[in-house]
């Protein structure tokens, strides 16, 4: 402890080396090892971070253009001859759009050319006009300048994905169409705007009209149900298994099977859902209700395992303290063990939910892969989910869907980041380590 003593023993036995000398001799080696270990860790982190950055970079560079959309300004005369104010749904709005386009370019006479001209604007333009009249019938008879979405080929051209230098027969836009676009460009009637359609509408066959709101709503319904079911059930099951269950062979069997379930491929859960929920219970196909149930089955084992681990990590002395003052088993668990285990349980749950958010395979099995235009309004409406929508769009050949695929992935990733940050915030809130 003090310095004089070791020296005295040293003097008595000069042949035995002092501890401090041995320590000093080994010190360089020890620090070297430490440094190397740190380097390994640093490289591991750097590599994974760079891959992550690469992923984000490619997806973002592919997808950001989908957040913009090309619009064309048209001078529309709402001709009372064409429009039936009392029944706009049966009025010929596509004809109105065509008429407007013809009046823009009166020299276009051939049928084939007219068709090319019409294809410059999206088929959504007619719906847009129809909606305007439905909301403001007094517009009939007046002339207005209206921005309508351009066709996806025009959009692609404006975004630089279709080049003028390519020979005409290999290009999706003909020379004649290019002339019209150029005229519009010169008049300043083509503009790129923020693509609100992408966030406010459901799926569509036309890329310029397709949006993710339907899939997003479907995902939210599905996940809400998953969370609502799997968290309480999972936590209750973990609590029972960890704190109350008798130690016997049956419980061991249950434990082994829960661990097995966590490793079962998700598509198997989809098959199970198809057989049980749809074929046996006759729940509606393609519905978030069934999707939520299937994902609950898939998430439950994960939540149970994470919750049990966090229950196990509560020090036994806390239990003893509570039992020692005469708390019952349930009081001990609810008052002392659960609050300490909750942060870990929440983390496990959110990881499970985040996994469920990205799950595609089981949803394919229960029909949530259908082409659904309407935005689901409840748990039993037909719906898809975000990852399924990505899968569907990725399958489409149109260039417009390619960028929308990446954009949907961006939305999915943002959602994941939000969920994970929520997990961190929640954990920090609950984790008041006293």
């Amino acid at each position, binding site marked *: 402890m003090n310095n004089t003593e070791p020296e005295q023993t040293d003097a008595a036995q000069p042949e035995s080396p002092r501890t401090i000398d041995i320590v000093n001799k080994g010190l360089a080696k020890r620090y070297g090892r430490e440094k190397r270990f740190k380097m390994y860790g640093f490289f591991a982190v750097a590599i994974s971070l760079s891959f992550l950055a690469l992923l984000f970079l490619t997806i973002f560079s592919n997808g950001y253009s989908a957040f913009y959309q090309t619009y064309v300004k048209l001078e529309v005369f709402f001709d009372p001859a064409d429009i039936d104010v009392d029944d706009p749904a049966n009025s010929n709005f596509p004809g109105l759009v065509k008429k407007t386009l013809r009046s823009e370019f009166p020299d276009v006479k051939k049928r084939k050319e007219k068709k090319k001209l019409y294809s410059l604007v999206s088929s959504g333009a007619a719906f847009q006009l129809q909606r305007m009249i439905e909301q403001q019938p007094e517009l009939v008879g007046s002339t207005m300048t209206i921005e309508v979405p351009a066709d996806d080929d025009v959009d692609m051209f404006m975004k630089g994905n279709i080049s003028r230098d390519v020979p005409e027969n290999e290009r999706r836009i003909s020379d004649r169409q290019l002339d019209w676009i150029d005229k519009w460009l010169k008049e300043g009637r083509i503009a790129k705007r923020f693509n609100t359609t992408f966030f406010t509408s459901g799926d569509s066959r036309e890329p310029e009209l397709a949006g993710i709101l339907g899939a997003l709503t479907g995902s939210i319904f599905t996940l809400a149900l998953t969370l609502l079911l799997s968290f309480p059930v999972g936590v209750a099951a973990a609590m029972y298994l960890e704190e109350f269950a008798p130690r016997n062979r049956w419980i061991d069997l249950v434990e082994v099977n829960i661990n097995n379930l966590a490793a079962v491929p998700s598509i198997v859960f989809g098959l199970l859902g198809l057989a049980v929920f749809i074929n046996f219970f006759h729940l509606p196909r393609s519905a978030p209700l069934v999707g939520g149930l299937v994902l609950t089955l898939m998430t439950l084992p994960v939540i149970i395992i994470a919750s049990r681990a966090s229950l196990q990590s509560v020090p036994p*002395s806390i*239990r003893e*303290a*509570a039992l020692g003052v*005469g708390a019952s088993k349930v009081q001990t668990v609810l008052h002392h063990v659960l609050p300490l285990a909750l942060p870990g349980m929440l983390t496990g749950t959110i990881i499970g939910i985040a996994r469920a958010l990205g799950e595609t395979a089981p949803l394919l099995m229960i029909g949530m892969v259908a082409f659904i235009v309407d935005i689901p309004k409840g748990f039993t409406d037909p719906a898809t989910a975000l990852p399924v929508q990505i899968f569907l769009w990725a399958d489409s050949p149109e260039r417009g869907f390619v960028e929308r695929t990446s954009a949907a992935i961006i939305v999915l990733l943002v959602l994941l980041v939000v969920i994970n940050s929520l997990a961190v915030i929640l954990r920090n809130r609950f984790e008041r380590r006293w």
Partner: protein
Amino acid sequence: MSKQKKYTREQRGTVGRIESDNPRMTCRNVNVYYGDKHAIIDVSIDVGRNEVIAMIGPSGCGKSTFLRCLNRMNDTIPTCRVTGDIFLDDTDIYEKNIDVVPLRAQVGMVFQKPNPFPKSIYDNIAYGPRIHGLVGNRQEEDEIVETSLKKAGLWKEVQDRLNQPGTSLSGGQQQRLCIARTIAVSPEVILMDEPCSALDPIATAKIEELIDELREHYTIAIVTHSMQQAARVSQRTAYFHLGDLIEVGETKKIFTNPQHTLTEDYITGRFG
């Protein structure tokens, strides 16, 4: 005292009078096993009413294990098995349909390692009275918290930080907090497992005073490594050795005239 009267080191039957004139707890032929390990071997002993009994012995001899049998704290260890009879007054506490909740409210325990709840100092004390319904309103609760902390000699140090976490206290303060937590429920029997091992002499004196005071109404079993403490606070002393109860008797007698050679070795410092 003549050498022949002494029991040799090899003899393991309990020496001395295990009975008490007015027993509160009666233990007969208690055996405790941790899996295959036989930690307590055929121990029979009485704990007298309004008496402080000290349990001494070398480390690992089973003092804590035996103490934890008295309020069935060993139930929480899955590998632990207890046989024999332990009576609190006239009830066999190891009978099948005994409810451990009232038992532990009656037989309180201070653990060897301080284990405050990860809650505020106030809640640490108030928790027991709250779950047992001993307090009706906040005022009564405040009162119990204050008197318990005062008895444990902690009030002055914590009176203006009652909302701080109990785990933020020093080791010795935590131990006193645990003592206060135990006496807040007013148990009739208090088991103390080395309550003063982390305390300075002043706090120790305070606790010993408290033990003396509590003895008027309560029964106390205390495990201690301090021979002086055992001599100061207890009326009877039990000496454990490797799971055997070697000798029981009046404290004065044990310390002045031990019958068993093992006891004598331990007390005079030749062992442990």
